């Protein structure tokens, strides 16, 4: 498990400055109207939004860092800490909730020993909850990376986690 996390950081974020430059050059930013687009793209390349990236964006599009941080902290999609190898997104939407979604979230938290928006120590999983994933008919829903797991209950959810743990074990 540890090895894989190291692998990722070795092959992962190339110099952050470079990433920011590429993104801004490609998107051709002149004003702040596309700030969110730039942040999305930089996050996709770097894996998260480290302080250096925000500073570089600030210098390049000439927007105060405070404004950029205001935007980053406002939207749920942006994160300033690196994520684990797998991102678990549990739906806390109404349809999932009335079918026992909270119990699934509680079970995952207990199993991984993390709270929402936290990453396990081995950098294996990051747990997030989302307002609604739009597949309400299949609630409770848990999405790992981009794979949807529908009709979850605490037991099934733990089995899914185990599957990912074994895959990389």
């Amino acid at each position, binding site marked *: 498990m540890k090895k894989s996390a190291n692998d990722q950081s070795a092959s992962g974020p190339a110099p952050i400055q470079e990433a920011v430059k590429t993104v801004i050059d490609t998107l051709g930013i002149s004003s702040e*109207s596309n700030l969110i687009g730039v942040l999305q793209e930089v996050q996709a390349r770097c894996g998260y939004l480290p302080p250096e990236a925000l500073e570089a964006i600030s210098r390049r599009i000439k927007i105060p860092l405070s404004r950029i941080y205001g935007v980053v902290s406002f939207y749920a999609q942006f994160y300033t800490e690196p994520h684990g190898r797998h991102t678990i997104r549990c739906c806390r939407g109404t349809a999932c909730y009335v079918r026992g979604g909270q119990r699934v979230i509680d*079970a995952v938290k207990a199993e991984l020993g993390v709270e929402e928006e936290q990453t396990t120590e081995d950098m294996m999983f990051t747990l997030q909850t989302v*307002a609604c994933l739009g*597949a309400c008919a299949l609630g409770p829903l848990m999405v790992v990376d981009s794979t949807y797991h529908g009709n979850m209950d605490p037991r099934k959810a733990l089995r899914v986690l185990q599957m990912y743990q074994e895959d990389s074990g």
Partner: protein
Amino acid sequence: MSRIDSLQELDVRRQRLSQRKEDALRTITLCGGTGCIALGLAQVYTAFEHEIQQRGIGDKIRLKRTGCHGFCEQGPVVVVLPERFFYPGVQVDDVPAIIEQTALQGKVIDDLCYTDPVSGCKVAYEHDVPFYNLQERLVFRHNGELDPTDLDDYIVRDGYSALAKALCEMSPKEVIEEVKLSELRGRGGAGFPTGLKWELCRKSPGDEKYLICNADEGDPGAFMDRSLLEGSPHAIIEGMLVAAYAIGAREGIIYVRAEYPLAVRNVNITLQQAREAGLLGANILGSQFSFDISVHEGAGAFVCGEETALIASLEGMRGMPRPRPPFPTQSGYKGNPTNINNVETFANIPLIILNGQQWYRAIGTEGNRGTKIFALAGKVRNTGLVEVPMGTTLRQIIFDIGGGIPGDREFKAAQMGGPSGGCVPAQYLDLPIDYDSLKEIGAIMGSGGLIVMDEATCMVDVARFFTDFVQEESCGKCTPCRVGTKLMLETLTDITTGNGQPGDIDRLVQLGQMIKKASLCGLGQTAPNPVLSTIRYFRPEYEAHIREHKCPAGVCHELIAYRIDPELCTGCHLCVRNCPQNAIAGEPKQPHEIMADRCVKCGICHDVCKFSAVVIE
């Protein structure tokens, strides 16, 4: 793809397409919506591809991945055309039989057929399934039929005819008049008359006008916009084109949630197709009208569904609303007149233009014309997307189409309109639902989320859940919403944890009414609705929590305990094996016991027990 430069060329193309001889014997359609994908569509699709290839019958059997069929509960859904044989929940192992017997020989396979949960009968054809045949699918008419990323598939079904009609036969004013007369109301929630909004935007001074499609479907429990964007993206684009022509916009933006990757993908593909075909860009269909659309992905903030917050977000700022007026139709995106409509609203436009307002007005009720798509979810047998005329009753939706409540449980309430809506109790099951009737009973249409709740749902907990949601999503700009929702949440948390005080209910009502009156935007103004409506209809449940420290539905953690009934327990050990906390002790074949100090009340033992020996107290 060749350009279509005039109405005639569009007609010729459609004729050519419709005369194209269908050389395939049968077409197997697979629902390609997010729901079916979650249930394993990709594997089933590959299995079909493989089977067809191996048998070398690619010329006889066509395989097609369509948009969402709406019956998400039953995915992956397979329909074999032209007979419309309907197979729900198809697995990879079923594929060879479907190819051999149904696709090649036209025989129905009984074992794979759908069983109606109400009558217990097997149903062979899609159009006989009660979930479908009791609906009136207009906006959704193509979703289960066409390949969303195939322009010709849309054109052959009268696609872009409404645009052609508007451009060639109608002036912008006539288009607005037609939409006004149709009495179409915005499907995003508030129900503002669409035609009037267009007129306001058209009349606003300014050369540069913008058209925005609000696809930031943030209401938990609503997913019709996702399904439409995934399954009928060309219809949304056509609706936007007609609107742009009417108000005089040259630039359009689709603001879509980043949580909908498939919708983003399909929209981007279809936009490119439309551009190549001359249906977007300069001089559309050879006319003077030019318009193009870009896609903007949201970054995850519920409040951005509010018009002014959405615009702030588009401008690269924190998505915070501002006071209105000026309304976006006067001063919106970059200070220009901006018209914002919801996805489902745009999807209605081609229907109105093509069939005329009189045809449209015949559907629905006075002042509430047309159909509405509801996202049916929660404690109901048939979950999925349901399109019905306005004025349909809840009973028809939940019991006739939805198949009722699973198990032997009783219907308790339907939560309508998401966090801005309210809970509708059983006494209103026969109320014809539309924008106005729902408002009268303390709920709202909202975007059409409809979550069914049964007796095992605690209404105080539901109110706490929604308040937690709006509190989290409150942007924090105005005090009544920022602080008020926080105070409401604290009181509700106290009540659900057994710390409620006498007088709390009245305080909640007072606070709720204040937040409604004093908040800046729709989020705050509607945030107390779930609390107020549950107090209105389920006050005794609140009182039980406060006075007796009891949760009648057996939901609130602090007020319940799990216990094993020694009379019923057979000592099978199943609960012991499944308990993640090792909180259950007992010798095999002897009654077990839950150790209260270790129990985290996850409820797994209750779920797995085959003898109903685990009771909630």
